[in-house]
């Protein structure tokens, strides 16, 4: 892929299934590996960032207020928790982004930040086993996602 981030988002918008695995450093689209054990062909599509947590928090807020559907509700596993339907405002429901699109944007961004070395655990949560965003308390990143145990590598 020329630009993994944008091409993958486009595929998901058109109905493709996806699975992101932080610990295995993998991304599957419709059952096929696009990134496997941190290896991929082409460009990731996002440059190294000095403020990855800020962007992650923004993407998380969009995901939290995104529009759920039967498709997104059937997703078995997700790293981050969105708001349930009855907690969404009218504006979220009327103009919000589809939940699966918001989810792939967030999870793939985190994966890319891990892969390109922008997200270094010791720089923002040294000696902790999880990091909680100060502005959005529901956003939690576990250490094992960023620095998996050796046996998982």
């Amino acid at each position, binding site marked *: 892929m020329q630009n993994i981030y944008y091409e993958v988002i486009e595929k998901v918008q058109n109905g493709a299934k996806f699975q992101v695995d932080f610990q295995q450093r993998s991304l599957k689209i419709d059952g096929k590996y696009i990134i496997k054990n941190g290896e991929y062909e082409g460009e990731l599509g996002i440059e190294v960032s000095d403020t990855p947590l800020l962007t992650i928090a923004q993407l998380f807020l969009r995901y939290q207020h995104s529009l759920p559907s039967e498709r997104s509700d059937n997703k078995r596993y997700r790293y981050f928790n969105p708001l349930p339907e009855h907690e969404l405002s009218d504006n979220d*429901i009327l103009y919000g982004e589809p939940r699966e699109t918001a989810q792939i944007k967030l999870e793939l961004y985190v994966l890319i930040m891990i892969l390109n070395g922008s997200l270094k655990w010791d720089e923002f949560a040294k000696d902790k086993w999880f990091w909680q965003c100060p502005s959005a308390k529901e956003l939690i990143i576990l250490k094992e996602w960023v620095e998996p145990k050796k046996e998982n590598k």
Partner: protein
Amino acid sequence: MAKFNVQCPKCGANIKINAPEVVAVVAPISAIPVVAAFPAKKLNAAEAKIEALRSADVNVENLFSIRSTNGAYEVGRFSEGQFSVVSDNDPIFAAIKASRTIPDRRLFRRWIMAQVFHMLSEKDCKTGNPIGFTAALRRKGYKYQWKMVVEELRVQAKLFNDDPENYAERNRWFNRSVVIQMANDYIKLVKNIVGTIRIRHCKGVPYVRLDGTDIFVDDLQTRVYASLEKLVKSIKNTRNPGALHKATVNFYQAVKNTCLFFDMEQSKAFKDAYKGAGAFFTLKNLILFHDCVFPKMDQEASIAYLNYLVNDKDFEGYKLFGVLKDFLITNHIDIEAKQREWQK
């Protein structure tokens, strides 16, 4: 006249007042499922009720816990300079006790409006141009029309007893005649498909392969068409919403067993009812909760005008959809601009 001790929820001051007669409260028109968990901490009965309403985002600013001279706690309401006791038979509490739901008028069928807005702004993935509502509906595929109608009729069967007003509004669009027309259209579609597929032969006897099932041409009438027509008759013979739902489920099952392709043309009756229902509930929501009105009318007049339009049984759904499009323009609602704003 009995006297009540009223405790202000903000400052905690006790006030003694005379209790006037009980005032009835208008029943809500819809309900959303919300768990009505009464708090476990030590609250009196009235405080617990107010707390349950507060946790469900119901405005409780004018509600108070009051104690009568006999020591019993009641919920009181202060409005327009008048104080009244909210009785236990109040529709709000009755609904909570009966169905464990909190009525919330603001959430009245807002998913319909959301779906209409999203379908109106749906774009082609290659060109990025808007494709229009009808094309967006077609994109959902043929199966969607049956799934949607079966679910709608299931809900209508429940509303028939619980909420006649809401039932009438929904049944205006999706009703028996629409289902009959959809079923007849399906039989025509199957006949067209059979007419175009290759005729195979088994020991010289012609047969067709219909969605993976081999059927002799001579058996088509008895095995396929007659059984479908029998199911159409059973839909025609239904006399209540529950029976209509069951008959439609049976027909949908037959559709799945006979042939079901994604690109089959959706029924005209379905598309019209879908547009009509979408436009009606979107307009109602916009008028009631988003301060939108028809030109030179206030909220009350706008609702009356909308009801006047749909009371005419010959007023088709696509026409009401046209009214909705004009309504969005006159009320300056730009869906794409709002979507861009949300992304920020």
